[in-house]
């Protein structure tokens, strides 16, 4: 009989060791899958985990790209983690990300071709505002009518996607684009663009913002009264109410903060790596960020690491895909496995495994 015994406090050693163990287990299980698909498992694993970091042919380019890919994930996940800790379920960060991009881009495109230095900051503010506004819909509905935020935030993702298509084909369409969908490319409009801050560093303002968000989130949660309220509400909603925490304020703050950060991710992405609003601008960062938030145990520092690990599987997965001819579905399944193992072995940091007959705890 195997049973679990709760540790009084999470084990420090296992907290660090479980991710390593999970990656090792994923290598085994994933390797088996690659072998079944008729590919060299060792080569595949090496390409996914090692080549983006150290292969002389790719690393100089891939390493900075990790930041580009992880930036929006971390930025969104930090915002979401606040809500998740307080028991507020914002599943619609993808929609807030889209709206941030649309709002910000609209401001920039309205100014075209002015080259004032104020344009980019104005766009960033508009982007954060767009995400905030979109998150306020479920927040206000929850506070005023008691409507469930999971449903509203999720359905608003689809609404945002349709709106984005309408924008890419209508008001924001590039007038010089020959009737094709898509806005002007911000990479060709310096006053509104978000390029790499140093060549080949991968650092753009979005990555900077992600790092600031991690630090800010960490301080908020561990040092600030709001962070205390958030943690209290998550652990014991009733105690929180007695303790003077206003549930309505908490809902507005958590959804609004998450929305604003998702909106920031959107505007930095559209002005930087993506370049333009198109009918397919969003690629699922808002959903992946939910996983990143939990992988990071809802802790900003953990989220930083989880975001980088996810980014590594994307970039390494792409390399493996075209170098070994692996179907992208295999990479997707591989990522799923990694997540399963990461989530599963986490049990070791909170519980002791006891083997033997049930005794006295």
């Amino acid at each position, binding site marked *: 009989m195997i049973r679990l015994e709760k540790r009084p406090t999470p084990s420090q050693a296992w907290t660090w060791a479980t991710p390593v163990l999970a990656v090792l287990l994923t290598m085994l299980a994933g390797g088996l899958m690659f072998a079944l698909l008729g590919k060299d498992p060792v080569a595949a694993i090496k390409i996914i985990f090692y080549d983006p970091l150290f292969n002389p*042919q*790719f690393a100089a*380019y*891939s390493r900075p*790209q990790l930041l*580009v*890919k992880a930036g929006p994930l971390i930025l969104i996940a930090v915002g979401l983690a606040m809500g998740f800790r307080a028991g507020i379920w914002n599943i619609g960060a993808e929609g807030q990300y889209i709206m941030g991009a649309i709002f910000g881009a609209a401001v920039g495109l309205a100014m075209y071709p002015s080259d004032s230095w104020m344009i980019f900051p104005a766009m960033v503010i508009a982007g954060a505002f767009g995400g905030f506004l979109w998150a306020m819909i479920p927040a206000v509905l929850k506070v005023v009518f008691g409507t469930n935020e999971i449903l509203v935030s999720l359905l608003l993702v689809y609404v945002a996607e*349709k709106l984005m*298509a*309408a924008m890419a*084909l*209508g008001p924001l369409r590039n007038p010089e684009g*020959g*009737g*094709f*969908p*898509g806005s002007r*490319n911000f*990479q060709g409009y310096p006053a509104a663009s978000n390029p790499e801050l140093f060549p080949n560093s991968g650092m753009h303002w979005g990555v900077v913002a992600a790092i600031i968000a991690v630090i800010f989130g960490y301080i908020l949660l561990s040092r600030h009264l709001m962070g205390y309220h958030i943690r209290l509400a998550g652990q014991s909603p009733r105690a929180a109410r007695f303790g003077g925490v206003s549930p309505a304020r908490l809902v507005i703050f958590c959804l609004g903060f998450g929305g604003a950060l998702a909106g920031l991710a959107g505007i930095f*992405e559209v002005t*930087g*790596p*993506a*370049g*333009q609003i*198109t*009918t*397919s*601008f969003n*690629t699922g960062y808002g959903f992946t960020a939910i996983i990143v938030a939990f992988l990071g145990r809802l802790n900003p520092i953990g989220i930083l690491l989880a975001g980088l690990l996810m980014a590594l599987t994307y*970039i390494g997965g*792409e*390399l493996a*895909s*075209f*170098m070994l*001819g692996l*179907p*992208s*579905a295999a990479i997707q399944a591989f990522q799923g496995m990694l997540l399963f193992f990461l989530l599963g072995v986490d049990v070791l940091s909170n519980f002791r495994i006891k083997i033997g007959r049930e005794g006295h705890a």
Partner: protein
Amino acid sequence: MLRRTFLLATAAVVGLASAAMAQNGPVKVGFIYVGPKNDGGWSQHHHEAAMEMADYYGDKVELIEQESVPEGADAERVLTQMALSGANIIFTTSFGYMDPTINVAKKFPKVKFEHATGYKTAENVGVYSARFYEGRAVQGYLAGKMTKTNKVGYIASFPIPEVIRGINSSYIAAKKVNPDIQFSVIWAYTWFDPAKESDAAQALIEQGADVILQHTDSTAPQAAAQKAGNVYTFGQASDMAEFAPMPRISSIIDVWAPYYISRVGAVIDGTWVSDNTWDGIGAGMVGIGEISSAVPEDVKAEAEALKEEIATGAYHPFTGPLNKQDGSVWLAEGEIADDGTLAGMNFYVEGLTGDIPQ
């Protein structure tokens, strides 16, 4: 707009100069697809053509492929990594790869790029596309002849010039043989979503359409039509022959392989130069799938004659007199639309109802 014949002539001249640069060892050819390699439509067709090209050259080329690459930042990264891995030529097979292709091409001047359906070229970036509207004219003709309710349903994807061109072209051809014809257009806002396409086909059939044209890639509308009974459809992107002879009575097929073979061949010989190719039935880039036995012999013969006329250039699907939807004159009697207008087409011709989403 530059035409291929002109470019071939230039290519020959430049070819002499750069022949010394010809390749040693296998040429590494990259392809990136927007969907999975087996999506049954657009991406699968490019993938199969790539395989045909690889078979043709055997061990002279090494093929590397990446499927399901989102347009935008991810595409730029995948392209860069492919170029870093030593690719000599990379085909980017979706419109949304246009800016990423141009960006990466700037960083790798020695790597050649070929972008499908776009319009931005560079010294090392060529573009290619097919004149699908020529095939649409043949479909429109068949639709006009075959319909009994005079209602044609059209499942459109996104309101972009290529799709609008297709609607106009098929409508003009249908109207010619059937003045009472009416088109109902549903904008699905997706290239590929079987359930939605099926619902769209269903809605059109329920409103009396007995011919369904589609500009989306799944076979779901075919299945919906099959279930409904007396409804005619056309294969899109691939032949969809499994639905012949009914409901699928013909199809438009993308034929990319010859182009891929010729362009990769140019890289092998060291004669590649940037091009702007827009070929149709005549050059073999657009194929018309076999017209099935559900179509009467005489109609079939006439449709094939029309196809022949378009192939030889004797007839252009956009020949005046044609008015725009608002009644203003677009083309005078006998006038032929220029490629520039066609490439950026954003209006309906007279007789079509409804608005193009803006």
